[in-house]
């Protein structure tokens, strides 16, 4: 997804002189071509996430369309107040694009895990919160939102799914419809595991590349079913529950730090977010009527 981010932003910069890239000393090799083509609009600004957000907001205030990019927990959790005040309260906007989604950096431990970002940013008035699941979705959602003057968060993973799904900002997708009275809800790259885990199970499956604004109309259509949110983060469950009168369940992050290392696949297996674990959770809900 990062490569797609670079490709899309490079293409946008070629046609839009107001596109600016700010890196927090990450992905600088990836953006070498961008730097070569647009040296005046490329800044590897330093490891100073609070300032990066404020500076991005300042650029946006004066008509530029900046993309600020670094590792998810540092640009969102550390800089939450800068996003809240400088981007949202001031209505200056800016594009915040992270890498290291959820457990992409499993081996680095809990300091580098990022699963609160969607939840905390969706609480901010005016904020748009996006979790693309594939390269194609990255391209679509970046292009549609980058120059609307609003603060937009894009959560990117190095482990995209490879499903070809047409997405639109603010809209959910019905991946499949079943008859078992259970609706599975997910977002982001985890969709691949969810599809495999739900294979041949009689459930509805909804997919939400946009966490905020949530497609409440689509959620509401499934109000009569039991909804099981399966997600490797917080935020989707809370967004789904904007719709009144739902019966929801959650299968995802426990109330404890994930203290294991390994790979994203190891952590997902530990949390029951691998296809087998997902199948077990969905099967349990189907069996419990």
């Amino acid at each position, binding site marked *: 997804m990062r490569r797609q981010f670079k490709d899309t932003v490079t293409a946008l910069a070629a046609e839009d002189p107001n596109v600016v890239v700010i890196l927090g000393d990450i992905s600088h090799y990836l953006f070498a071509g961008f730097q070569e083509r647009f040296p005046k609009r490329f800044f590897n600004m330093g490891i100073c996430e609070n300032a990066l957000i404020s500076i991005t907001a300042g650029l946006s205030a004066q008509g530029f369309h900046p993309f600020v990019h670094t590792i998810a927990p540092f640009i969102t959790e550390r800089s939450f107040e*800068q996003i809240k005040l400088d981007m949202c309260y001031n209505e200056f906007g800016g594009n915040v694009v992270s890498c290291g989604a959820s457990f992409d950096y499993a081996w680095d431990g809990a300091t580098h895990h990022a699963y609160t970002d969607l939840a905390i940013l969706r609480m901010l008035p005016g904020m748009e919160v996006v979790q693309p699941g594939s390269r194609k979705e990255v391209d679509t959602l970046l292009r549609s939102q980058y120059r609307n003057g609003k603060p937009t968060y894009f959560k990117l993973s190095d482990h995209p799914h490879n499903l070809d799904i047409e997405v639109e900002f603010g809209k959910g997708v019905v991946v499949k419809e079943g008859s078992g009275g259970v609706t599975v809800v997910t977002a982001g790259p985890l969709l691949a595991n969810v599809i495999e885990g739900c294979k041949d199970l009689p459930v509805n499956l909804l997919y939400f590349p946009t966490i905020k604004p949530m497609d409440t109309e689509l959620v509401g259509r499934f109000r009569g079913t039991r909804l099981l949110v399966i997600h490797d983060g917080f935020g989707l469950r809370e967004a789904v529950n904007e719709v009144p009168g739902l019966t929801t369940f959650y299968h995802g992050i426990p109330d404890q730090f994930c203290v294991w290392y390994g790979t994203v696949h190891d952590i997902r297996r530990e949390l029951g977010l691998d296809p087998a674990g997902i199948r077990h959770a969905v099967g349990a809900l189907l069996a419990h009527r």
Partner: protein
Amino acid sequence: MNALCRQIRKDILVASRTSGHGHIPTSFSIVEMLYATYACMKHDPGNPAWDKRDIFILSKGHGALGFYCVLARLGYFPVEDTRAFGAYLSKYGCHPDRRKVAGVEASTGSLGHGIGLAVGMALAFNLAGSSRRVFTLIGDGEANEGSTWEAVMVAANLRLANLTILIDFNNSQVRSLPIANPAERLAAFGCRVREADGHDVDALKAAISAPADTVRAVVARTVKGYGCRTLEQNIFEWHRKSPDAAQLEQLLGELEAQSVNA
């Protein structure tokens, strides 16, 4: 004391008395800094959105009352409006809101934010090939915030010669974390630093206008509550206090006793 700056201090006292809200000493310490800065800026009170204007951001947003009274005397809005300071539905909150008050370029209040916004705007003007300048005023208490120094580092690394950082060095942090040598620190971070008497308008103008090939920093030596002995000697008691009728008369009298120049 500059005659208009004395009048602005009177405006601050009256607005504080009328509204019941304070922050008088910190507002008093920046009156000349604000007045001198606007004297050096391109701006048009009749057209606050003029697209060639320079930008000023009060990063230490708790100096809002002083800021409002300076903007009022510059012609942005009637000074009487400021007497609704902090009132429900008033435009004039105890920290400035850019969406409500003419001439306010950024909503500030949480310390260490405005300076980063200023760096971003200065960078934007450089990218656009514009001659517009950006000024931001920070407090020495605000200089406790790490984000302040992040912004200074980036600005200096980018050599933003269109950015001027004004430091209200009023020793407000004497009881917690003093910044004893702001000029040395800012120079070490890569700024071109000038020091000035923060209550001498001409000295401030000279420092603000001095040529520089990178970020300018003006360390203004100021006194909290400057102009009223009662405030100067009781800065912590008066931090957020509003005067009663008798105190207002006393403070106005202390101001009136100050000799003024044009």
